[in-house]
């Protein structure tokens, strides 16, 4: 186990966008006690596109929620940049998510009452900040939405809606963007488009993206894949391809079934 979960090399520390150390998350007590994350240490380097994979119940979503400041942790530590999340109140956490984290969810990403542009600007409107015009234009151009800005979500296709969500996540120039199965509800073409945009945002805009997925093809867009099983990191694969990932997944699935 320690082979895969080894602490990252010291030189990478400065460039870590988010880092978890010995992160443990326990639900319930006594009989119903479930350990969702069991001493996970992981680091997401700035300017990198990481996929978190694992079978259902492996704790991959929980890891993301804890590291994004959406959920509290039981023990250990988790940071966004230099900010320690443990011990922060709801207000500080909310501010942190607003100003330093971007989110792309599987469903219900957009407010139906706002048009595309308003949805993209929502985090900045909440913060009462003026958007960086030049950056916004670049983001909107990257996701190819320039001619759809006045449309309401109901007038956009699923893929277009998810592109708006990606644009919104990037619009505030966050330290890190978390995606929770961002292509889960899309057909493969639209999904490929979204994954392409996420990769472009890393390559061309220098963003940091961490995405939870169970789709090997989606994972293959990433620079690195972290595998989770039973609340522990079991593998860490740089430069993944769909075949390699699939191969890996089969192994853990088979393991999971026989154990």
């Amino acid at each position, binding site marked *: 186990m320690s082979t895969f979960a080894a602490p990252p090399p010291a030189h990478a520390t400065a460039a870590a966008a988010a880092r978890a150390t010995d992160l443990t998350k326990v639900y319930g007590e006594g009989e119903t006690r479930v350990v969702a994350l069991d001493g996970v240490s992981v680091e997401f380097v700035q300017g990198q596109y990481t996929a978190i994979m694992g079978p259902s119940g492996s704790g991959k979503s929980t890891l993301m929620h804890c590291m994004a400041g*959406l959920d509290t942790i039981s023990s250990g530590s988790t940071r966004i940049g230099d900010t320690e999340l443990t011990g922060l109140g709801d207000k500080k956490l*909310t501010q942190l998510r*607003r100003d330093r984290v971007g*989110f792309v969810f599987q469903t219900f990403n957009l407010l139906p009452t706002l048009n595309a542009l308003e949805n993209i600007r929502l985090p900045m409107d909440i913060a009462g900040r003026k958007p960086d015009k030049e950056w916004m234009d670049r983001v909107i151009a990257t996701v190819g939405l320039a001619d759809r800005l006045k449309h309401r979500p109901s007038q956009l296709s699923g893929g277009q809606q998810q592109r708006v969500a990606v644009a919104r996540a990037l619009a505030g120039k966050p330290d890190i963007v978390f995606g929770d199965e961002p292509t889960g509800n899309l057909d493969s073409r639209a999904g490929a488009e979204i994954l392409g945009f996420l990769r472009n945002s890393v390559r061309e805009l220098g963003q940091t993206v961490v995405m939870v997925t169970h789709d090997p093809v989606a994972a293959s867009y990433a620079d690195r894949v972290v595998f989770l099983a039973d609340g522990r990191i079991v593998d860490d694969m740089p430069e993944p391809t769909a075949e390699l990932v699939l191969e890996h997944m089969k192994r853990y699935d088979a393991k999971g079934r026989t154990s």
Partner: protein
Amino acid sequence: MFRTALRNVLAHKARLLMTTLAVLLGVAFVAGTLVFTATLSEAFQRSSEEGLTHVDLAIEPDEDSEAAESTPGGARNLGQDLLDDVAALPGVESAIGEVTGFAALADRDGDLVGDGFATNGANYAAGSDGTAEDERYPMAEGRAPERAGEIALDSTTAERTGYGVGDTARVSVDGPVREETVTGVFTTDDGNVAAGGTLVLFDTATAQDLFTAPGEYTRITVTAGDGVSQEELREAAAPLLPDDAEALTGERLAQDQADAIEAGTSGMRTALLAFAGIALFVGVFIIANTFTMLVAQRTRELALLRAVGASRRQVTRSVLIEALAVGLVAGATGLAAGVGIAVGLRSLMNALDLTVPDGPLIVSGSAVGVSLGVGVVVTVLAAYLPARRAAKIPPVAAMNSVHAPATARGLLVRNSIGALFAAGGAALTVAGIGSGDKGATMGAGAGLLVIGVFILTPLLSRPVIAATRPLLSVFGVSGKLARLNAVRNPRRTAATASALMIGLTLITGMTVIADSMSKAIERMASESLRSDYLVSMANFSPLSTEVEQTLAEQPDVTVITGLRSSPALVADDPDARTLTGADPAAFEQLTDLDFEDGSFEGFGGTGVLVDEATADDFGWAPGDTFTTTFEDGATRELTVAGVFSGNQLFTGVVLDSATLDPHMERVQSFEVLLKTEGGASEAAKSALEGVLGDNPAVLVQDKEDVSEDIAFVFTLLLNMLYALLAMAVIVAVLGVVNTLAMSVFERKQEIGMLRAIGLDRRATKRMVRLESIVIALFGGVLGVGLGVFFGWAVGELISDYLTTYEMVLPWARIGIFLGLAGLVGVLAALWPARRAARLNMLEAIKAE
């Protein structure tokens, strides 16, 4: 299907809570009204029956007899001869001559005991030799009054005021203060005393002196000897009666009283039920809203039922059974709450000294039936349309993954119908102003307009709420989202706002009318009067001429006249009219009449003034003469000197009191008008009051006091209406809570997403709160608008009768109403906003 429906009710307990509460409140209002009025009626019935236990036969002046109708003064009092003759009849055990009238009693601080209306005086009937005991009033302490200057008090009053035997109490019957010695305290089962009134007993001669005339009685009560029935007694007495008197058996009297009490309480019951009806009507909107939302949320579930073979009727029925269950629960708890309200009201009335006679709580079978029935019927009817809509869900909807979104379908048809209704209603309302049908057209128009506005509210919601944009933008993104959310489901917003609109329309309309009326009457009083002071009895019973004589003797009183009032037959009109008598010279100086024709010149002696309406009735012009039959039967030729335009203070025929007085049975004034040297001042006022012996039963009022009095009456009336309409507003608040809670529930994922991307709890709360305020204010603006319109329209009708009427817009109050609407929004949002802020973000954003 039945089991499915019940399971649904249980599963949605929390979501049905507000609906149940709304129905419950309406039902409680109905049940409370029914139980309270029945209990009150029963209590008064009992106490009046107790008061009649000594009476087998009562002889009273008969105002409806032909003889009474043909004399302007009505039926005469009963004479001593009659009493003696009746007492001598075989089968009569005893006959008592009663003399009753108004008698005000001052407490030790000089204030009036009781409210002035239930303060009675009567005689202690000591028999012809003056030694017999009056069995109606057994003396608990001391002895009965025997001569002028002595009185007895009922024990409740004695206890309340602290007067005991030997004390001196101040009493006033028609103005002058009488210092009386309390010789006895008695107990009585008199109904009026049981209801909180006071009773002062005088000896018979004094009572006659005060209330009738020597040897005259207002009533004779007879008890029968053994073996003589009431009917036999009545037949025996019948030949002795004059033709303007009648004899009633004790049973008949009890029945008449029961009928009168029933008539009194049924009026109260109807009024209260009307307000209960309004509360229930408001509830209908909430029930319909709730079931619409429940059906929308369960679209897939219902479609699945259809897909597995349930018929449309079964789906409709399952929703209706749910409504039935809600209605039953609400009806039963409402009934219980209503009984509680009735008990509480009775204690409240007792606490406020509005003593209610003791009696058991009456919860009749019909009250139970009506309460439960109202709960069930209202709920099921309100749920009918949503139930029909549920049945129309196609089975294929079960396969769709998303909720059926609210559509704008049908809004065009809806808006056209609404516009038609509203325009037609407004036109009819305006047309009703000049139609002269006493508001029938206007009522129909108002109804149509309200229905039209109900139908149009979804359409109106968009522009009205969009108008709040500049205000809401102050609150940043919370304000913007609140505004957008408020118009997201126009029908739901409309139904919620409509519920609030109903209450505010009524409240605003009534306030506009009452304020305008109050100002109009005040203006009338100040415009047509030039006197400094107006003196009258607190209960508006007549004043002795002694009062005006005393006042006239004051050096600084410059002009004074008493205003007499006497019934008379005028010209050939068979209906009695009221003559007003005054001193001509003083009247001219103390009033400010607008003459249509003629003038004060010629007023006096047989020259009279008539108002326009009377002049029109008879076709009179100055110089015309007519015959008048006075209350004593004498006739006289009178000449019209002037015709003045109508006002509420002086109507009919005004004549010289020197001409009228000789024909009046008791020469009394209903009011005295006067001017003082130097005008009205606090000093002058207290000097006048002092001259009258600081009598609590006599009011000395300057114009300002009169205005305040008028304003007070209207304020009291308005406050009662506000209290009654409060229930409708409370139900509407529940509706807003309900809508918001449902909206928060439906937008769970959305709120979770907002929280995730950085909307903090405070801003989330603010978003829900602002949406609530926007909806409530929307209802408030519509209500105030409609209320002002109706107030204006009804005012136009009133101004035909009340010439000084002008619409007064109570801006401050309207501001308060809108502020209250906003407050309603804030309060209604408390719980839903908390729920939204506490929402579990992770659960919410997980895919369904």
